[in-house]
């Protein structure tokens, strides 16, 4: 029951991060999702990532659409403002919020129904505008809240719980995000926390349109033989292209491990370094065309490629495109915004 908040009592020995918060401070209300839902693992990964990154919770704004995944922002970062918006339209709300205050970190959580069907249009335009945010899709290939309909990411040939076979071609949001200009594109699996937490951290450090597709099996409606989004299927067909370490810029340089074979280092805007230990043959995540090719190639073989698939560390944000002032627009008042009566008198004079 989400209206029952978790007890505020914290064990005094709980470890605090650099900004004085314990891991518990990043938690939300008790989840109402089904026991074993992949989405809860993702919430836990978000909590872990924010705590490790020393982000003050109130510096994050969480936004979601509608669906099981869109309920989850209530289950993490309880000290952040959140907004459960309209089905498939969270991207526009997030865009408006980002325009109003460029200083906060925007975390959009959506699902495959919310983003790949009703929200495909807004998803596309959010990515092509380069809105600075993390957009995470909890992808289970099924409509959970309405009990088991196929979503647009369900693979052709996958079987529903009652045996119905999906004949429609799937939409691959990762490929789409790449095509549309997202500057950080990754895929992971809710059951692989070791991969997911660093990916979320890297995503939150990146500036630009950031997309993470997380395969998150639905225990109620899509975790059976014949489903290509079940735990078993994903574990068997997951090909990780790389493993990621995030080294924040403010840490002393000596903390870094010496470079080793198969490691690519990518420096972000704030000086943080991403160290990618490639498990695939010479995979370079800075090559967009190669990434698209690689994903399509493995997809044809029924394999899900996970890891950081693409990053452009030089990406521009929507605010940069628009040329807005550094001060958040919501902090500008009458003095900064109103041209005043003298200017109006001049305008009147031109209209006579």
């Amino acid at each position, binding site marked *: 029951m*989400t*209206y029952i*908040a978790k007890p505020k009592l914290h064990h005094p020995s709980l470890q605090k991060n650099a900004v004085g918060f314990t891991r518990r401070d990043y938690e939300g209300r008790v989840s109402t999702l089904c026991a074993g839902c992949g989405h809860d693992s993702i919430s836990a990964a978000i909590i872990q990532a924010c705590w490790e990154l020393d982000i*003050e*919770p*109130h*510096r994050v*704004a969480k*936004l979601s659409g509608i669906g099981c995944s869109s309920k989850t922002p*209530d289950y993490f970062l309880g*000290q*952040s*403002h*959140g*907004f*459960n*918006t*309209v089905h498939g*339209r969270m*991207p*526009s*709300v*997030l*865009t*408006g*919020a*980002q*325009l*109003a*205050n460029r*200083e*906060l970190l925007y975390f959009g959580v959506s699902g495959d129904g919310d983003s790949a069907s009703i929200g495909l*249009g*807004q998803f596309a*335009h959010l990515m092509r*505008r380069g809105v600075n945010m993390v957009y995470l899709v909890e992808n289970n290939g099924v409509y959970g809240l309405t009990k088991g309909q196929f979503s647009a990411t369900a693979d052709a040939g996958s079987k529903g719980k009652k045996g119905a076979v999906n004949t429609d071609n799937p939409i691959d949001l990762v490929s789409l995000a790449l095509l549309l200009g997202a500057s950080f594109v990754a895929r992971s699996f809710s059951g692989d926390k070791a991969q997911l937490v660093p990916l979320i951290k890297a995503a939150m450090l990146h500036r630009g349109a950031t997309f993470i597709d997380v395969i998150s099996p639905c225990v109620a409606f899509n975790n059976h033989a014949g489903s290509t989004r079940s735990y078993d299927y994903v574990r068997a067909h997951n090909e990780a292209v790389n493993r990621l370490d995030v080294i924040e810029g403010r840490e002393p340089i000596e903390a870094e491990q010496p470079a080793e074979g198969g490691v690519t280092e990518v420096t972000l805007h704030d000086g943080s370094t991403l160290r990618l230990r490639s498990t695939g043959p010479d995979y370079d995540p800075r090559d967009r065309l190669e990434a698209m090719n690689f994903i399509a190639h493995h997809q044809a073989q029924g394999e899900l490629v996970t890891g950081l698939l693409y990053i452009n560390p030089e990406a521009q944000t929507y*605010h940069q495109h*628009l*040329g*807005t*002032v*550094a001060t958040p*627009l*919501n902090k*500008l*008042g*009458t003095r*900064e*915004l*109103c*041209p*005043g*009566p003298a*200017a*109006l*008198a001049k*305008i*009147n004079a031109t*209209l*006579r």
Partner: protein
Amino acid sequence: MLTATNDFVVKFANVNGSGSASANELFAKAILRMGVPVGPRNIFPSNIQGLPTWYEVRVSEAGFLGRRGGVDLMVAMNPQTWAADVAEVEADGYLLYDATKPLPASAFRPDIHVIGMPLSGLCAKHYNDPRQRQLLKNVLYLGGLSYLLGVEPEVIEQLLGEQYQGKPQLAEPNVQAFRLGRDWAAANLAPIGLHVQRADRVGDRIFVDGNTAAGLGCVYGGATVCAWYPITPSTSVAEAFEKYCRKFRTTPEGEKKYAIVQAEDEIASIGMVVGAGWNGARAFTATSGPGVSLMTEFLGLAHFAEIPATIINVQRGGPSTGMPTRTQQADVLSCAYASHGDTKHVLLFPEDPAEAFEFSALALDLADRLQTPVFVMLDLDIGMNQRLCRPFEWQESRHYDRGKVMSVDDLEAGKPFGRYRDVDGDGIPWRTWPGTHPQRGAFFTRGTSKNADAGYSERGPDYVQNMERLLRKFVTARAMVPQPVVKPGPRPGRYGILYYGSTSPAMDEAAQMLEAVGFPIDLMRIRAFPFPESVRDFVRQHERVYLIEQNRDAQLRTLLVNEFELDPADLHPVLHYDGTPITARYIADRIRASFAADHVEERAA
């Protein structure tokens, strides 16, 4: 021969894309510069080139700026619409046409005065370039008209100079063509019975279109985010906002204190406005009826989640492909009750560009103070036509009222916060913006399914309590919106007229027409929804109340009947909805006919 000084109607019938618009506008402006008020209207097709378009100019020293009805002088330049244009001229009125090729007598009417000018012939003789021949033909008839009506040529030449300032290669041929037309008319024609005479009746008023005014109002009102999708007739609102922002909101370094997004559709537009409003920026969108239809789900969310949003709705004839270039007041109900669930929204009804400016700025204040969507209900007639109106005003001392927003200091001081608590008894709760305080004031925003502290709740009593508070808020709004404007008749009347928005200038003239024939009437102009109690009182105080609207179904009447539980029989609708702006004669004729019917009933009784 029809004679009138400073009180007549000229209509230009043209083909769109032929360059007539600027010449016709110049004609209207020249009369204004002579101190005589004019009310011009474009009646144009949804097309770029080749279809019929009209420009109607009401010249009125008395200051009536609406359409009067009827045409005293038709400038018939479009063969496609010739028959209808000739038929529209008042008996004994005038028709100016291009007489280069002779027309049979059957093309004219015996009861009107026909004036021919060989416009194409003169152009062909003096200009070689086909484009020039086409464009300057318009300036040529302007020359002819200036002679026929007595419009001072110096005024027109000065206006041409202003229009082509810094472009002598354009100014020169235009002035030459103007003189050519005027000289030809002076040599071959005589002035007609319609006459423009210099007066001093314009004063300090300005001449501007409502969309420009609304865009400027949003700049003055402190909007920083504009998200919109192109749709006639609203597009120029966003364009005006951008133009004035570029001028007034750009730092010396070239950085912008505003963000304008041309969104992928109207759903995204309102979504961005809602996101920005949630996050503490003043945001607006400009759209028309079809756009509002697309926005309705978000409007419901904004209503329930209590998020400020300003929507400039420039109304047109529906539906989607309907009559995008024609005017109506047909979105009253779809905006007042937009969305699913129990929703009601604040509507403001400006009468002209001056109020379009004021109400747009006010809407941004009201949206913040009431934490709800606010509509500025413009229409094409106000939005896309230049109108003479009082100058824009702004008080130096005016500051944006951001409403009940808790600051970091409030929260730090331990001021209790519950997002949906009615602590002040006015139904308006306090809110916090994201990122305000590290430990306090954060909440999760949802439509309903919440308690007064924004916690998740599906309990019935929590839902009801919230909905009752929203109603209280709507009652609070009554006193905050612009109050009705009453114009009592010369004697305490039994009859009253309610009207709103763009009907205003035609109503002014209609009231005078009615009074002249012995029907004094009290007027009340409604300026906002929710309606203040004074509207109900006005209805009760009059034996008979007419309600003038520019839609088929008397939508504001439905709203009045519904909100005040009035007897529908107490409101007599006078409706005009053919897509053209309502005329004074139409209103006066309908009401006179209704009176006449009453008298027949009275005698029969």
